[in-house]
């Protein structure tokens, strides 16, 4: 429910506020107003409506998170399937590579990469995604290893179906459901990571808002103007919570399915 | 009054699919110092009957009875702290999984001694070695220092029996105690249980699906089927001249000397007959 509302709010942002252009960065007349009927979340130091900023910030934050997860799946899953299918030295190389990437404390690698790459939407996605793919490699590999010996794979090999085709047609479908569960859980985590990076000044260049960056700006007016940091933070929390709850119940559903 | 009194015991499992009666009005009377066998197939409710004596029935189980007592303990009071270990102890089918893998045998028995006796550390140590010797474990010192996976299945079962004795229980429930063991080891464990009964006056409730085993150790026997007792009496009498068709079927299904080469009838086939006769 929260997810649907959030997504709808973000997509229809221009229609949900009369301050759309302020949401994108244009300054307004009244600075640092407390929440009122006119500005439900108050205004910031440039007089921009916070509600509009949070809505438009959500566009950036949620799409960064989505793209990070997609990127991680895009790199991780094929590698995992290949590693699991071929085994041997291919498997060794790929899995040792995941070990190396997982040796970094998660946020630290992202900070490092983001600092090197500089600000920008694509760079932010890349910086986080680079540290995230090994998890999907592990999941996909574990799934494929458990399937590799099954008769249908051997039958396909016997009939002369090519390796690529076997992996794409016969093995990939089995990887989808665990990857989906992990992906949902990771959306919550990537939103937090993205927010943390842009809070540290490693996100997008202003004036395009995203949640972490709004909070960073709000720190200058904290704690006197409490609404400035409270509402974007609340938005991050609610969306992350929604993805985590969804992921958790998906995981439970999958577990019971696996037992039956 | 008998030592163990069970009168009209009912156990109903409250499952998601609806209530399921697994023990339907079982009544038993076991005298002190008796070895009482309960025989039946898996799912006949024999284990469930026994676990009610220790309050170890699963959470979904609803237990009711007119009488449920062991010695002076009325088990319907659910004062399990006074019963478990002190009065009734239980040993299980698979000794390997019934022992905690990350504690030594000595530590596990010592925990029970600490709980149920006032002995100090040194006295507990002496008692521990004495118990291990009593259950016929060679080299008690070494066994005490061993982890469960380091000793054989027979030794594990002996260690469990020692643990049951260490609590000072007068009643021992033995749930298929020899099923997981080799035949030779099986005979040794049965002999041990018998000798412990003779030495200590233990009352033993012996659960098994194996009539041969039951006939070796038990004084009395009850035959269970579908949560009910279909026949009960002295072991010799029941096994020599069974009254109930199900008991006959069970007997026919177990191998006897001279039956080599013939096909044993299966109980399932006989049960159809039995079920039909009641219908």
């Amino acid at each position: 429910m929260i997810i649907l509302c959030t997504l709808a709010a973000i997509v229809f942002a221009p229609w949900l506020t009369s301050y759309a252009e302020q949401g994108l960065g244009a300054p307004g007349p009244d600075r640092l107003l407390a929440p009122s009927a006119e500005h439900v979340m108050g205004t910031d130091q440039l007089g921009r409506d916070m509600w509009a900023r949070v809505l438009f910030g959500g566009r950036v934050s949620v799409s960064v998170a989505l793209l990070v997860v997609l990127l991680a799946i895009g790199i991780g899953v094929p590698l995992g399937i290949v590693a699991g299918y071929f085994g041997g030295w291919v498997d060794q190389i790929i899995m040792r590579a995941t070990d190396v990437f997982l040796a970094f404390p998660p946020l630290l690698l992202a900070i490092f990469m983001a600092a090197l790459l500089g600000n920008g939407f694509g760079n932010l996605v890349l910086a986080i995604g680079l540290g995230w793919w090994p998890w999907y490699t592990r999941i996909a590999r574990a799934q494929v290893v458990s399937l590799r010996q099954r008769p249908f794979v051997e039958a396909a090999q016997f009939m002369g179906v090519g390796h690529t085709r076997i992996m794409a047609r016969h093995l990939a479908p089995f990887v989808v459901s665990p990857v989906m569960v992990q992906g949902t859980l990771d959306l919550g985590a990537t939103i937090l990571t993205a927010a943390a990076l842009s809070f540290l000044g490693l996100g997008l260049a202003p004036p395009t808002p995203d949640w972490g960056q709004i909070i960073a700006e709000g720190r200058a007016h904290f704690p006197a103007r409490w609404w400035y940091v409270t509402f974007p933070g609340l938005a991050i929390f609610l969306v992350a919570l929604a993805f985590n709850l969804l992921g958790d119940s998906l995981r439970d559903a999958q577990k019971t399915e696996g037992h039956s | 009054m008998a030592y163990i009194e069970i009168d009209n015991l009912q156990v109903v499992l409250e499952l998601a699919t609806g209530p399921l009666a697994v023990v339907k009005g079982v009544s038993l009377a076991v005298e002190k110092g008796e070895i009482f066998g309960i025989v039946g197939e898996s799912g006949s409710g024999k284990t469930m009957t026994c676990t009610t004596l220790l309050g170890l029935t699963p959470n979904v189980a609803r237990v009711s009875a007119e009488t449920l007592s062991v010695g002076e303990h009325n088990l319907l009071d659910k004062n399990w702290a006074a019963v478990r270990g002190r009065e009734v102890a239980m040993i299980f089918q698979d000794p390997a999984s019934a022992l905690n893998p990350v504690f030594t045998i000595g530590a596990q028995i010592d925990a029970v001694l600490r709980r149920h006796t006032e002995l100090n550390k040194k006295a507990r140590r002496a008692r521990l070695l004495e118990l291990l010797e009593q259950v016929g474990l060679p080299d008690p010192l070494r066994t005490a220092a061993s982890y469960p996976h380091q000793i054989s299945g027979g030794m594990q079962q002996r260690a469990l029996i020692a643990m049951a004795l260490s609590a000072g229980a007068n009643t021992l429930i033995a749930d298929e105690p020899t099923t997981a063991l080799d035949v030779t080891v099986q005979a040794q464990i049965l002999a041990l249980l018998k000798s412990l009964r003779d030495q200590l006056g233990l009352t033993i409730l012996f659960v098994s699906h194996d009539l041969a085993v039951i006939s070796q150790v038990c004084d009395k026997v009850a035959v269970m089927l579908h949560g009910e007792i279909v026949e009960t009496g002295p072991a010799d009498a029941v096994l020599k001249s069974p009254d109930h068709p199900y008991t006959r079927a069970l007997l026919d299904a177990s191998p006897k000397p001279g039956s080599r080469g013939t096909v044993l009838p299966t109980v399932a086939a006989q049960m159809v007959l039995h079920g039909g006769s009641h219908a």
Partner: protein
Amino acid sequence: MGFKVLGKRLLMACVVIFCVSVLTFLATRILPTDPAALYAGPRASTAKIEEARLRLGLDKPLVLQYAQFAGKALTGDFGVSYRTRQPISKDIKKFLPATLELVFIAMLMAVVVGIPLGVLAASKPKGCLDQISRLGAIGMASFPVFWIAMIFQLVFFSWLNWLPLSGQFSRETMLFNPITVVTGFNSIDAILSGNWAALSDVARHLVLPALTLSLYPIALAMRMTRSAMGEVMQEHYITTATAMGLSRREILFRFALKNALPQTITVLGLTFAFSLTGAVLVEVIFAWPGIGSYVTAAILAVDFPVIMAVTLVGTVIYVLVNLLVDLAQASLDPRVALS
């Protein structure tokens, strides 16, 4: 445990650390930013930049550059910060204790609070505490650390005025009861030198950052303990222990927990990783002079050697912690330890 296993794990850790160092090194060289230009400063002339290039050895082949970098890093020499113009190792030595103080408290809280709560939650599956542990873990995993830190400041400083806003100690302590530096850990130093006034001040300043950083580790430890214990409680030996009349407390905290412990202590590795990176954010909010504040300042100044050094040091510490957790796990299980 056999020395062979120990040796193999150590070797693996070394290989991983080597790869990590190559990776971080390559990343700084491949990317389009020119280290020489950064070193020389913003308005430097081309000549100055070339001079810096020679001085940093950036004209040499990559392999040589790496060898030089790695050789120096092994002796603890990470070069000089562009920003502070101080040797980075000296800076790290100065800032690391403050960070570790926070990280250790968070891990300690996870062990002392999280694990027992997890055990209790497992004692009654689907019970009240169990539901709280589940929701708590999910909730804590959804808070942005830096935001909850600010909310704590709002509540405990602005509204209630119970605790100080930020910093490690107040100005009065600095002036009248300065802490003698022994270990670099303020609280320990205060205890060692018997400086009780300073200790209480330090403790008051510690509460909020430590609390912020501990929330997630506690929830995580509780959840992982709960799930490991849930499996163990189904085991036959738990039934045996119950049948022998052992107390519930002894069964839960001694017999079951020891079996669940190998799984539970993986929490330590995870909480360490979380606290280390979470500390970066928490330190910024609470103006805590640790590695996090140091690296954040470096980020803003595009001070690459510092970012790289901190990444490396953080990763090496993390790998070592994971190695310790691995070894502890192996030694806890007699079936593994003795084979």
